[in-house]
């Protein structure tokens, strides 16, 4: 999921898990840009490829690109 995640779920140089099973990647676990907005990135990627979001059979699942990672903080006191 190039537009949204920066690498697969195993990190750089590791085959993502679903790809290892020959199942397409849906970008659920890969690392993302800390300052980015995943959902916006995904919508931009669709739009710039001429895909109308209204034409998708089901778009609610795109909410998995929610940007919630920005709410994660390192634990206090290490």
């Amino acid at each position: 999921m190039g537009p949204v995640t920066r690498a697969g779920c195993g990190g750089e140089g590791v085959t993502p898990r679903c790809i290892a099973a020959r199942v397409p990647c849906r970008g659920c676990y890969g690392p993302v840009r800390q300052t980015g907005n995943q959902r916006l990135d995904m919508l931009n990627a669709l739009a710039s490829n001429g895909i109308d979001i209204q034409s998708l059979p089901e778009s609610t699942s795109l909410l998995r690109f929610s940007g919630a990672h920005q709410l994660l903080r390192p634990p206090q006191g290490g």
Partner: protein
Amino acid sequence: MTTSVNSKIINIAPLTRIEGHASIAIKLDDDGNVADSKVHFQSLRGFEKFVEGKPAEELPRIVNRICGICPWHHHLASNKAVDRCFGATVPPAGRKLRELMQTISHAEDKLLHFFFLAAADFVIGPDADYAVRNVIGVAKANPELAQKVVQMRFKAKMMLEKFAGKAIHPVAGVTGGFAKPMLAEDRKQMLADMQEILDFALYTMEFAKTQVFPPYLETVQTLGVIQTGFLGTVDDDGAMNLYDGKLRLMKADGSYTDFEVQDYTDYLAEQVVPWSYGKFPYAKSWNEGFSLDLDAPKGIYRSNCLARINVAEKMTTPKAQAELEEFRESFGRPAQATLLYHWARLIEMVYACEHAIDLLNDPEITDPDVRSEVVPGAGRGVGCVEAPRGT
């Protein structure tokens, strides 16, 4: 554990040796004897509702989140339902790979359940303080064995992960079959690993029969014994099958009816109770209603390993068959003692290991034709497999 003397209700919350969230409320009468007890499932899962409107082929990747311990069974049951809905035919190799993954998953689950969840009561003893009567206590009592258990479980989990990408939350089962074929070298390695796990399963069976169960045999046959029916999957010959077959619904007297999974609503129904989020399936076809009365339960059947062992005529593998015969000679058919679930679980572990090896030895398992063309369409499909703790 909190005890409230005034209200005469003992609440045990949370229950720790289970998957999920539940508590038990035990009600005492004026003399301090148990008057009633209820298990409360405390979490609403909601999967039935939030999968509505999703593409059907996505379901196997969504419902595998129902459980982190037995995701393969949810994954494959939903795959079978979608296959049926779309009218897809799974090629033999695809079916066998699915079954192999599920069978390995069963094998490692038995180790987890027996050693991590159940053994403490037997090894440390039922009267021991609960601070030591747990998996850490078991590990301290027999560190060498505990290490071996963890190693064997790890090996099985890694077999699944290495071949299918993910050991938990699997994605490799796809509508119409399996996502990838098995190569000769995968098969060779898995056969070697599985043989090692079978050896440990046989050791565990013997260990349990000689060192774990004997002091408790009387307790096992008297504690928590209820008379219920049983449900499990069998093949056309009546042998136990974990992946596919017809459902056999057995009454407490041992008589039974077989039916197709697609027709299950003619035989089973669900009861909703006000005190638990868990729904209570019962045997509608017995026409006796639903009652949890312990002395005279109505419509109640049990599933899971003891049920499968009870409904099956036989096992398809030799060592498991020998264990079944020995079990049946001692405890009859159907065996009703609840604690015999542990014994039945170990028989299933031997079966799962043997059956996984049979599947790996099948030349067809490496056939590259693992997935058929699928045309999505509206339809109805019911999918069912045997999960470690239920049908």
